[in-house]
């Protein structure tokens, strides 16, 4: 490549960073691409860290987003185990921890998020695990091997997935949740109740409304004390207590940051040559008419494609409907749209199939989100109806004798 070819530097080698580099090449962008990642390994799928990889069902090679050889074929360069510590916007350079300066024409921030560490005494003890990187997952797997009991702080998706994986490996598992119910931030009370029931059936003990005050170590055990004066003991503690966006670099560079790096519809930050994608961003969603920050693979890869399109001079794809999945035991949870702010919810159950149901969320006349447990058809129909933005007959949704696919006919009929 000639010295005058433009250079794109991507900060962060996760889902978003990898997809952005691959998409730039797919779109025919011929400039130089360098991905700087502070982990020592090439980009990998993070979801298996609480599921298949944690259970030892997948090898590390199997969770790589692409084999290393593919990046070489596509002339995508990597600087691994390297951290960008500063963005020099005046000189248009990303400064690495070792002092090296990487000149850029376009810079993409794909820095992801980090686990929130609750300010609890003992949170830094060696047997208290956080789970975000493959390295942390390997450490956790090592600890699981020597443990019979585990305590999980936080009943969010990651906490519950870890609970399910540990149960499947025969460990005794207790989940401690501060809020009055599990999944309080991401799903409705009804859906949370169903998932709570499934975990109880699988033998997980869940305590809600408990605030952990301290973690202490003694005699090979970790003792977790709560403000409610209860005490729990296990060989292993995993904290799944939420995530926060990695925005320090952007803030120090004077870019607009507010609950994530602010980006426009093309994933551009307040500097037109700097883009931001994935967990670290906050972007307006036209369908929900508000600014949102998402922590999911769909958002990371779709925003990566958007930024790549903008950089390569292609049309920007329309903002996608957010979707998310979670696998626990034999249940597959699929969610489309955002349920926050719903004013009505309809549950659809299937007689005789207690682990198969869907929750349909409405705001006024509009269907805004669907969450389905082992019901891919409900998820599919729901996704389509949300995108179409048409009124839907709620009594038909609730009626298990109605073939859910016929909801689509009605919509088509109504609009024609």
């Amino acid at each position: 490549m000639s010295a005058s070819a433009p250079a794109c530097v991507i900060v962060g080698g996760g889902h978003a960073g990898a997809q952005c580099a691959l998409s730039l090449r797919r779109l025919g962008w011929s400039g130089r691409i360098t991905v700087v990642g502070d982990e020592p390994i090439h980009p990998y799928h993070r979801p298996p860290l609480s599921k298949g990889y944690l259970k030892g069902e997948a090898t590390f090679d199997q969770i790589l987003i692409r084999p290393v050889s593919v990046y070489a074929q596509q002339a995508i360069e990597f600087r691994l185990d390297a951290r960008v510590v500063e963005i020099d916007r005046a000189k248009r350079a990303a400064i690495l921890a070792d002092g090296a300066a990487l000149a850029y024409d376009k810079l993409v921030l794909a820095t992801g998020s980090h686990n929130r560490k609750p300010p609890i005494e003992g949170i830094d003890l060696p047997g208290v695990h956080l789970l975000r990187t493959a390295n942390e997952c390997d450490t956790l797997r090592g600890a699981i091997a020597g443990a019979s009991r585990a305590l999980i702080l936080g009943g969010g998706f990651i906490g519950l997935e870890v609970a399910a994986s540990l149960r499947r490996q025969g460990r005794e598992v207790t989940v401690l949740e501060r809020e009055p119910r599990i999944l309080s931030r991401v799903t409705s009370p009804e859906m949370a109740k169903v998932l709570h029931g499934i975990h109880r059936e699988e033998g997980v003990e869940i305590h809600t409304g408990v605030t952990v005050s301290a973690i202490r170590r003694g005699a090979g055990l970790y003792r977790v004390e709560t403000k409610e004066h209860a005490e729990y003991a296990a060989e292993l503690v995993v904290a799944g207590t939420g995530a926060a966006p990695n925005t320090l670099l952007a803030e120090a560079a004077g870019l607009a940051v507010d609950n994530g790096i602010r980006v426009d519809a093309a994933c551009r930050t307040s500097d037109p040559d700097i883009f931001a994608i994935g967990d670290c961003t906050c972007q307006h969603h036209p369908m929900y008419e508000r600014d949102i920050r998402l922590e999911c693979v769909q958002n990371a890869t779709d925003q990566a494609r958007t930024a790549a399109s903008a950089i390569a001079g292609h049309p920007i794809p329309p903002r996608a409907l957010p979707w998310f999945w979670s696998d626990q035991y034999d249940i597959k949870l699929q969610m489309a749209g955002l349920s926050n702010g719903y004013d009505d919810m309809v549950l659809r159950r299937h007689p005789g199939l207690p682990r198969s149901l869907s929750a349909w969320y409405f705001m006024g006349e509009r269907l805004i989100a669907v969450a389905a447990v082992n019901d891919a058809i409900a998820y599919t129909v729901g996704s389509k109806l949300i995108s179409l933005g048409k009124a839907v007959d709620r009594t038909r949704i609730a009626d298990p004798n109605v073939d859910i696919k016929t909801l689509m006919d009605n919509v088509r009929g109504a609009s024609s």
Partner: protein
Amino acid sequence: MASITFITPSGATRTVERKDGSLMEAAVQNGVEGIDADCGGVCSCATCHIHVEPEWVDRVGPPGSAERALLELQDVTNERSRLACQVRINDALDGLVVRVAAR
């Protein structure tokens, strides 16, 4: 061992050899254009959508119910659509030809 040919949206042909795993893994391992596999193979993203060439449809078989539902969400789905992550490779698929769906 099965030899599998992917025809990409840009018309390029890639033939790869593989004895097990999924068609998606075979494509990703060889950098086949257009198979993004965002969800890593758990039948959630449909970014591994392929069309099986007509003469192979019977041997590859139909999609399962969850896979079929996800396929119905896609624009370019037809009766020969599959998600590559849900197709297991075996010797009987030696010579298989599939087209990567354009998105």
